[in-house]
């Protein structure tokens, strides 16, 4: 168990005052003097103060115990847990407090860093060397694109589907633009700042001005898990509608699909089902489950995914000219994503694969957007000298 020097010093101070009349509250002074989690790279100490029967760190780092017990400092209501983290790590977590027979997961009251997701928010520990990318930070001005809201009639789904469409600043109807279709587009905007990121990267000439269609799924678990109906909707209903409504470049190299987790699966599947239609894939932490032997044991929702991946791995076919794949090394899907790379290459794709010291979360996906988007769709930066 790694030991924090600062915690050891606090314990010494606590021990030396026992029975004495020290007017200073050492715990209060310790909390006031430090930021938390307490960083002593490579050690990071999580701290909770309060009455409890037990306190645990809850995180989703694959390879570590997802529930790690805090230790209470003797004679105090201060609980702590020290974790060793490699540089550049970024870990989302909650603190579980057990008291009076109840367990409650809370955000760390001592840590101001939060990451939001569709389920709420997590606290974040940023290890030495990790920085929120400057292009993802709030503050830097960029000319803003516009958003259109479309109702796309779908025979496949027998209903109209809501699609938001990003148009870049300085959009001109007499120009032609690349197209990117983003699964879980609303979440990408909400939790990964996609709109802001697009504005910035376009403004910096790192990606071209482009049209970005943001999908809002209906029954996500079904539609995004290699559902032929969804692939048909994307390729045969949405794409023609976008071609009709927007000035798009016609070649596959100017058309991309993007998604994270099951959204990556849906992107991969749509490209696989409609070869030659989409030349660019941005796949983040895809749930590319497969079996080398035996049956799928990850639940029926993944049956189609496993069938698809098993077939693809056995006989890869060309699905895109270029694919950018990213995954966090702290997420359980790292092996599946690593295994995808040689198959994509055997299928003829030019692949860039990036691993980060992060997990299965939106800020990890945000942090890879610049590299992925600019590699798939290089902007005019090379030509621009302002």
């Amino acid at each position: 168990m790694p030991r924090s020097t600062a915690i050891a010093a606090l314990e010494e101070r606590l021990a030396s005052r026992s029975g004495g009349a020290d007017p200073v509250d050492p715990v209060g002074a310790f909390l006031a003097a430090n930021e938390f989690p307490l960083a002593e790279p490579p050690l990071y100490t999580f701290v909770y103060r309060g009455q409890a029967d037990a306190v645990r760190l809850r995180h989703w780092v694959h390879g570590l115990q997802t529930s790690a017990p805090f230790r209470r400092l003797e004679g105090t209501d201060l609980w702590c847990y020290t974790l060793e983290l490699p540089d550049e790590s970024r870990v989302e977590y909650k603190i579980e407090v057990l008291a009076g027979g109840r367990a409650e997961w809370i955000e760390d009251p001592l840590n101001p860093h939060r990451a939001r997701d569709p389920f709420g928010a997590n606290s974040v520990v940023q290890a030495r060397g990790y920085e929120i990318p400057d292009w993802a930070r709030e503050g830097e001005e960029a000319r803003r694109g516009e958003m259109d809201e479309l109702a796309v009639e779908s025979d496949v789904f027998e209903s109209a589907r809501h699609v938001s469409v990003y148009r870049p600043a300085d959009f001109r109807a007499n120009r032609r633009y690349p197209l990117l279709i983003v699964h879980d587009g609303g979440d990408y905007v909400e939790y990964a700042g996609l709109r802001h990121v697009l504005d910035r990267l376009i403004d910096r000439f790192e990606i071209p001005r482009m049209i970005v269609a943001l999908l809002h799924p209906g029954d996500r678990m079904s539609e995004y898990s290699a559902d032929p109906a969804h692939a048909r909707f994307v390729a045969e209903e949405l794409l023609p509608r976008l071609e009709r409504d927007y000035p798009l470049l016609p070649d596959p190299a100017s058309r991309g699909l993007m998604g994270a987790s099951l959204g990556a699966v849906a992107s991969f599947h749509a490209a696989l089902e409609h070869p030659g239609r989409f030349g660019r894939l941005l796949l983040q932490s895809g749930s590319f489950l497969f079996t080398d032997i035996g049956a799928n044991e990850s639940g029926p929702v993944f049956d189609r995914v496993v069938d698809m991946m098993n077939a693809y791995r056995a006989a890869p076919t060309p699905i895109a000219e270029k694919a950018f794949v990213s995954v966090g090394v702290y997420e359980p899907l790292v092996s599946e994503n690593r295994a995808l790379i040689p198959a994509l290459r055997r299928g003829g794709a030019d692949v860039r694969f990036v691993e980060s010291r992060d997990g299965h979360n939106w800020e990890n996906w945000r942090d890879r957007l610049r590299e992925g988007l600019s590699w798939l769709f290089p902007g005019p930066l090379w030509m621009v000298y302002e």
Partner: protein
Amino acid sequence: MRVSRRRRAADNPGSRPPLVLLGPRGGGLALLDVVRGLEAGGALSPGARIAAITAGWRDREANEGLIDPRLADRVVDLELYRRSDRIAEADAELARAHREVRDRLKSLRRAYNLRLHGLIEAHRRLAELRGDASVLRAERDEALKAIRRLDARHLDRVVEIRSEFERHMTPPEREAVRRQRREVQTRLEGAEAIVLEGGHIGNLLSRLRLFGGRKLLDGRPVIGRSAGAMVLTERVVLFHDQPPWGEGHPEVFDAGLGIAEGLVALPHASARLALDDRMRGARLAARFSPASCVLLDPGHRIDRAGHGWNGGDGVERLDTAGRRVPFPTAA
């Protein structure tokens, strides 16, 4: 009086009008400072009108807020970008031919880059190879020559393809072009100097060519900023050692207008070049030697002086050992 100053310069071929190359905006050097300096030196009348070419800004062309706002009432934008759109709308045949030549140049550029990356990788690995020094030196020299030959051939081919287009389509003789050129000439009347702002080098260079190239600039003081400086040189070199999508190698893009002689202009050098990497710097300088690879950062300025250049404070070039040395080098 304004016209007479221009005539005076044109009447005396021995005295060429001032030519000023600037780094990117910022760095405490405003366009107004440069204009005032030219006024003080007698090259411009006080309060002289100035023509601006901002085609590199593309859809933001003629955005007055982007030029020094203190010069707004003296600047007339020639609007070459917008005019080229009008030409394309009016002359579909020319527009189609232009798209075709652009596609040919794109294919050529892809092939050039493929070969270039191979040669640069070979040169890089040879530099790291250990063995008999005299043998390896000769091989490294030969690897560099191969890059220089490829650069030269690429430039020849670009010029050849463009010349074919110009011979075949004769843009200056086409009505849509002539009409826009006449309007540009009208706007130029009374302007004593021309400012070329930066931006997208391909768009800027192609619009300049469509509107007469160096003839458009003849006889007037010219101030070129960033990409506007690059187009004035003999050879336009694109560069960014660490673009967000990975590593990049400097590449020859096209011939420039050839007004600024003896140098390769490298704006945003500190941001775009790995200047601490001596081997990269040395290779870049050696590729284009005897031309000087001049590092133009914000606030930098160089002025033509006879057949050479006067460098402003802090202006440097790369030497063939990859070191940053003052530009121009003191005699």
